[in-house]
C-alpha cells in the first residue's frame, strides 16, 4: 500500500523524522519497502519556480501549426512568452507555469529558456500529468479564475508529497487504511490520534429504498444511502493528487470519493447510478446460468456459489470483488445509491479464485474488514459527495446481522515477560494497548477494538500487541537446557558416510526434482494439477532425474561424468506414499565401473554384496541385483551418447544389513599362506558363485578370496573359460603348514569340480 504522508498527517502528528518513523514501523507494524518523494522536488527553492499564471495573449505559433504562442503574466509585473502544445485554453485562462530553472517531477528534467521553431519559450504551461497530479494529458491544467498571477503554485496545488510504500501483514487488515496506519503511528510515537474523518451532511428527506440481504452470513452488514442532484465531474486537484499518490487512477468525483474513503478507512464502497437500478437491491447467491459484465468489461458466467449484488431483475455486482457495467456511474448520472457493506472473507476469496479476479476492494475483504467501518465510510463518503458533487442525501436503509460481541480477554501482564524474556512494565503495556484502541480494565480484562477482533482473541495475542513495540530490545539468550543432547541417528551417520565414500570415489552429488515427467512405475502418484508436464509424477526411482542431469552435463560439454543423489522416492499406493531414502548414481562407463562404486559403498558399511543377474527391462542391457538394489548398463538406444551405467540402492534396506559392531580379526600372530588358483570351467559359470563356493568349501581358514582374471581363447577349449582367483589361508590359532594349504586347496578344487565341473589348471 502506498501511503501519502500528507494524508497520514491529517490523522496524526508526525513527531519523528520520516526515515526514523519508517525504520520503527518496520519493527512494530509492517514492512516499509521504501520512502519516495513524488511530484515537484522540494529542494534548493525549486518550488519557487512554479507559479500561477494568467494568459494575456494566445495564438498560433507563426512557424508551427500544432503549437500556440502565448504571453503569460506570472505576477510581479513580469510577462513571459511561452510556446505550448495544448489548445484547451485561450487568452484569459488561469494556468500553472514553471519558469526556467525549475526541476520537474522525477528530478531529471530542468526547464530551460529555449527557442522553439524560432520563437523564444521562457518556461512551460503545465498539465496534470506533468505535475503528477493525475493522469490527464489531453490538455494543460486550467485553474480557478480567482487565483492571482504570481501566487506560488504550492499554495493552491499539492505539488509534492512523500509516499511510504508498505506491505501489510495478513493479520492486519486495519493497516490497509491510512487511518489505521495513523493509529499505529500514534501507538508507536505517543502522538495524539485525531478522530476518524467524516461528518454526516444535512439529510434531505427520507426516501424509501428496497434492500434485502438473503445471505447475512456472507454479508452481515449493508448500508444503502441515496443521493439526488449529484453532479458528476472531475475531482479537485487535491483529491486527484492523493489518489495518484496512493497508486489509484482518478476517474470521476463520485468514483474517486468511494476510492478515497476506502483508502482512508479501509472499508470498500460502491456507487450505483440509482436511475439504472430496477427496483431495489438484493444480496443473494447467483442463479444457474446467470451472467454479469463486470466493470473491467469482462462477461462472466456466474457460479451458484458466487455472492451477488442484484437488483430486482439481474446481477449488478460480484459482491466484494467488482461492480457491474449495467449500473455504473457515468457523467450523466444524477442520482446515486452508495453501498457501504461488509463481506465475509471466504465468500470473496472463492469468487475471486473462480473468476481469477482481484481488486483493491477484494484484497481488503479477503483479510476481513471491520463491520463498524461501514458506518464511518458511509458518513465520510456522504460528506464528500455533498461537498464535491453537490449531492443531496435523501435516504438510508440498513440491514445487519447481530454482530457477535467478542468475549473480553482475561490478561496477565506477567505473561508478556514470560513469553518475550524481557520485562515490559504494566504501565507501558496498559498505555500501548489503550493507544491501539483496546479497553483495559483495572483487573486487566482486555476488550478488543472492532478492527482487531479477528486477530486478537486470546491472551497470547495481547502479548504480541505489547511485544511488537519492544522487539529491538529483546536480549539474546540461549535456552536453559534441562535434558536432551544433540546427535545424528545411526542412519543419518551412515548416509553421510555413503556420500563421503562416493565423493572420494570421484562422483559429484546431484539434486534432481522429486517431480518428474514420467516414471517406470505405472502406479506412481501423479499430481492432478501439475505446474508443467515436466514435473507431474512423484518419482519412485532416482534414475529418471539422474539421466536428465547426465544429459545436461553432456550437453554442456563436460567429460567423465559421474553423479550420485541421496534423496526420497515416493512409493505408491497413495494418498500418502511411503517415502524412502535412496542412493542413485549414473556414471559414464561400463557395468564394472558402476559395480565397483557400489562395492565400495558396501565395503564402507561392512556388508558383503551378493550379486545375481537380473532382467530390469529393455533399457538396461546388463543388469545385476544386489542386496537393496541394482546396478545396470543402459542400452545404447537411450538418447544419451556413449556408454552409461547406473545404480540404485534403498538405503534403509542396506543399512539394516550393517553389523552393529565390527569385531577385531587378528592379522599378525600367525602368518598367511597365499596361492593363486586357475580353473577351467564352463563359460556360463558365474565367477561370483564360484568364489562363494570356494569360501564355503575352505571354511574359516580361508581369509580372503580375490578375483584375478577371466580368460577365454588360446589354450582354452571353446565354451570354456579360465578363471583365476587368489586365495589367502590364515588361521587365528596356529601357523598353517604346506599340508594345511594342500588340504584347503583340495577342498576348494573338489567342491568347484562337483558344483561347476571346474578343473584346476596345472
Amino acid at each position, binding site marked *: 500500500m502506498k501511503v501519502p504522508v500528507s494524508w497520514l498527517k491529517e490523522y496524526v502528528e508526525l513527531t519523528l523524522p520520516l526515515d526514523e518513523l519508517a525504520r520503527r514501523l*518496520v*519493527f512494530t507494524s509492517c514492512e516499509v519497502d521504501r520512502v519516495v518523494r513524488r511530484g515537484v522536488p522540494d529542494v534548493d527553492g525549486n518550488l519557487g519556480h512554479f507559479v500561477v499564471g494568467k494568459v494575456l495573449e494566445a495564438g498560433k505559433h507563426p512557424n508551427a501549426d500544432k503549437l500556440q504562442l502565448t504571453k503569460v503574466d506570472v505576477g510581479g509585473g513580469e510577462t513571459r512568452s511561452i510556446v505550448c502544445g495544448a489548445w484547451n485554453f485561450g487568452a484569459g485562462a488561469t494556468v500553472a507555469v514553471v519558469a526556467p530553472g525549475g526541476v520537474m517531477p522525477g528530478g531529471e528534467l530542468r526547464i530551460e529558456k529555449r527557442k522553439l521553431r524560432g520563437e523564444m519559450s521562457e518556461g512551460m504551461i503545465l498539465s496534470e500529468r506533468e505535475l503528477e497530479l493525475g493522469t490527464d494529458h489531453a490538455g494543460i491544467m486550467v485553474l480557478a479564475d480567482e487565483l492571482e498571477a504570481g501566487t506560488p503554485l504550492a499554495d493552491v496545488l499539492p505539488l509534492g508529497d512523500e509516499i511510504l510504500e508498505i506491505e501489510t501483514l*495478513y493479520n492486519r487488515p486495519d493497516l490497509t487504511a491510512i487511518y489505521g496506519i495513523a493509529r499505529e503511528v500514534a501507538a508507536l510515537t505517543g502522538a495524539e490520534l485525531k478522530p476518524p474523518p467524516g461528518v454526516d451532511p444535512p439529510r434531505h428527506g427520507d426516501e424509501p429504498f428496497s434492500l434485502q440481504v438473503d445471505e447475512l452470513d456472507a454479508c452481515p452488514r449493508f448500508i444503502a444511502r441515496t443521493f439526488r442532484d449529484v453532479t458528476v465531474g472531475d475531482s479537485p486537484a487535491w483529491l486527484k493528487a492523493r489518489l495518484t499518490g496512493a497508486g489509484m487512477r482518478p476517474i470521476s468525483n463520485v468514483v474517486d470519493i468511494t476510492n478515497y474513503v476506502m483508502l482512508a478507512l479501509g472499508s470498500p464502497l460502491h456507487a450505483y447510478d440509482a436511475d439504472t437500478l430496477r427496483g431495489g437491491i438484493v444480496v443473494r447467491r447467483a442463479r444457474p446460468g446467470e451472467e454479469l459484465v463486470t466493470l473491467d468489461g469482462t462477461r462472466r458466467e456466474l457460479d451458484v456459489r458466487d455472492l451477488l449484488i442484484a437488483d430486482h431483475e439481474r446481477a449488478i455486482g460480484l459482491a466484494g470483488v467488482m461492480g457491474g457495467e449495467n449500473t455504473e456511474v457515468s457523467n450523466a448520472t444524477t442520482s446515486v445509491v452508495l453501498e457501504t457493506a461488509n463481506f465475509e472473507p*471466504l465468500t470473496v*476469496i472463492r469468487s475471486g*479464485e473462480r473468476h481469477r479476479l482481484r481488486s483493491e476492494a477484494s484484497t481488503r475483504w479477503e483479510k476481513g474488514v471491520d463491520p463498524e467501518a461501514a458506518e464511518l465510510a458511509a458518513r465520510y463518503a456522504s460528506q464528500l459527495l455533498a461537498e464535491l458533487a453537490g449531492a443531496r442525501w435523501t435516504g438510508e436503509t440498513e440491514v445487519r446481522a447481530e454482530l457477535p460481541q467478542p468475549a473480553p480477554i482475561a490478561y496477565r501482564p506477567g505473561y508478556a515477560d*514470560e*513469553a*518475550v*524474556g524481557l520485562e515490559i512494565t504494566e504501565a507501558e503495556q496498559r498505555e500501548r494497548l489503550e493507544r491501539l484502541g483496546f479497553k483495559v480494565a483495572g483487573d486487566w480484562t482486555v476488550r478488543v477494538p472492532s478492527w482487531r477482533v479477528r486477530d486478537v482473541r*486470546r491472551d497470547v*495475542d495481547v*502479548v*504480541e500487541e505489547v*511485544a*511488537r513495540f519492544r*522487539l529491538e530490545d*529483546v*536480549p*539474546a*539468550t*540461549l*535456552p536453559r537446557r*534441562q535434558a*536432551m*543432547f*544433540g546427535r545424528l541417528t545411526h542412519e*543419518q551417520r551412515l548416509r*553421510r558416510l555413503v*556420500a563421503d565414500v*562416493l*565423493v*572420494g570415489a*570421484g*562422483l*559429484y*552429488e*546431484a*539434486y*534432481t*526434482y*522429486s*517431480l518428474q515427467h514420467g516414471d517406470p512405475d505405472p502406479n506412481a*502418484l501423479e*499430481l*492432478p*494439477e*501439475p*505446474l508443467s508436464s515436466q*514435473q507431474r509424477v512423484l518419482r519412485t526411482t532416482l534414475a529418471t532425474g539422474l539421466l536428465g542431469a547426465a544429459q*545436461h552435463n553432456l550437453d*554442456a560439454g563436460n567429460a*567423465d561424468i*559421474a*553423479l550420485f543423489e541421496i534423496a*526420497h522416492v*515416493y512409493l505408491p499406493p*497413495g494418498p500418502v506414499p511411503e*517415502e524412502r*531414502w535412496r542412493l542413485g548414481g549414473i556414471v559414464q562407463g561400463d557395468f564394472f565401473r558402476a559395480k565397483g562404486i557400489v562395492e565400495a559403498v558396501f565395503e564402507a558399511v561392512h556388508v558383503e554384496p551378493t550379486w545375481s543377474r537380473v532382467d530390469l527391462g529393455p533399457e538396461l542391457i546388463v543388469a545385476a541385483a544386489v542386496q537393496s538394489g541394482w546396478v545396470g548398463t543402459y542400452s545404447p538406444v537411450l538418447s544419451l551418447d556413449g556408454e552409461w551405467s547406473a545404480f540404485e540402492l534403498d538405503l534403509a534396506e542396506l543399512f539394516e544389513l550393517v553389523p552393529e559392531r565390527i569385531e577385531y580379526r587378528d592379522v599378525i600372530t600367525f602368518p598367511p599362506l597365499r596361492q593363486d588358483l586357475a580353473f577351467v570351467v564352463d563359460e556360463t559359470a558365474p565367477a561370483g558363485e564360484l568364489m562363494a563356493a570356494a569360501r564355503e568349501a575352505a571354511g574359516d581358514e580361508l581369509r580372503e578370496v580375490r578375483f584375478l582374471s577371466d580368460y577365454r581363447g588360446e589354450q582354452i577349449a571353446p565354451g570354456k573359460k579360465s578363471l583365476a582367483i587368489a586365495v589367502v589361508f590364515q588361521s587365528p590359532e596356529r601357523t598353517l603348514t604346506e599340508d594345511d594349504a594342500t588340504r584347503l586347496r583340495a577342498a576348494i578344487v573338489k567342491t568347484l569340480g562337483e558344483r561347476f565341473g571346474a578343473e584346476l589348471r596345472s
Partner: protein
Amino acid sequence: MDSLAAVDWTAYETQATAAIGAALADSELEDARVHWLGRKSELALALRGVRDKESGMLLNGIRGRLEEAVQHREQELRRLAYQHAAERGVDVTIPGTPVKRGRLHLLTQIRREIEDIFLGLGYEVWDGAEVSTVWENFDALNTDAGHPSRSTLDTFYLDDDTILRTQTSPDQIRAMMTRKPPIYMVSPGRVYRRDTPDATHSPTFQQVECLAVDRGITLADLRGTVLQYFRLLFGPEREVRMRTSYFPFTEPSVEFDVTCFLCDGAGCAVCKHSGWIEMGGAGWVDPDVFRNVDLDPEEWQGFAFGFGIERIAMLRHGLPDLRAFWENDIRVLEQF
C-alpha cells in the same frame, strides 16, 4: 663334486661381489645377478649337484651373501638415482599425479553445516516426510480456511487431504506427536510451492525447520539461538534483528534479518542498501499448536523458525540463479 672342486669359490664370491658392487644401472645389476646367481650360473649348477651337508652350507652361504649384495646394491642405485635427480633439480612445480575426487552438492555442504551447528547446540536432526496431510501442514498449524497458502494456486494437492508440504513446519507437529518434551530438533528438507521457476523461485526448494520445546522458553532464547546460527554461518560480527510478522502457528511472530556480511551494514546491492538481509520467519510457538498435539501450554513453551537453505547458499557464495542448484553442471558443482 667335480664342479665344486674345479671352482675357487672364494674367488668366485670376491669377483661376484665386485661385479655386483660395480653395477651402475638396474640393467647392469640384473646382468650381474643372472651371471653370478642365475639358474645357469656356476653357483646354481653346483648347488644342484650338492650331495653333502658341508658343500651345501658353503654354497648356500655364498648364495645368501650374494643375494644380499644384490639387494644392497639395488637400494644404493635407487638412492644414487634420486641424488642424481636432485642434483639435476626436480621441477617440483609440475602437478602431482591427479586424484579423481567428486564433490558434495553445495546444498548438502550447507545443510551439513547447519546440522552441525544445531548438533553442537544439542539439537537432534529430524528427517521429515514431504508428502503431508492437509491437517499436518495447515490445520494443526492453525492456518485458517481462507489463508492464501491453502489455495490450489499456491499448493500442490494430491487429493483434498494430501499435499506436497509447503513448508518444513509440519515436522513440528510430527515431532511433538511422537516425542515427549523437551524437544530440540532441526529438520532440513524439500518443500514445494506452485511457483513458476525463475532466478529466485523454484517449485521445489529447501528449508530448515527448528523447534525448541521446553519449560520457560522465551523469544529472547529464539533471538540468541538465531544469532548463534547466523554468526556461525556468516561470521562472528553478525547481528540479528526481529521485526513483527505473522504466521498462523507462532504468536508473537517475527521476521529475522541479519546484518549484511558483504558491506557490514553500510549498504550494498545484496542488501538493497539497507544493511540488512531478510532471512526468514520465526516466533514463539502458539499455545493452540501445543493444544493441537495434546501438550499443555501452561507447562511447555517453545520457539520455532523456518529458513531457506538455497537462500543462504546464494547469498554466501554469490550465486545469481536458483536454477543452477538443480542443473547439476559439474563445472558449477566442482567450485564448492
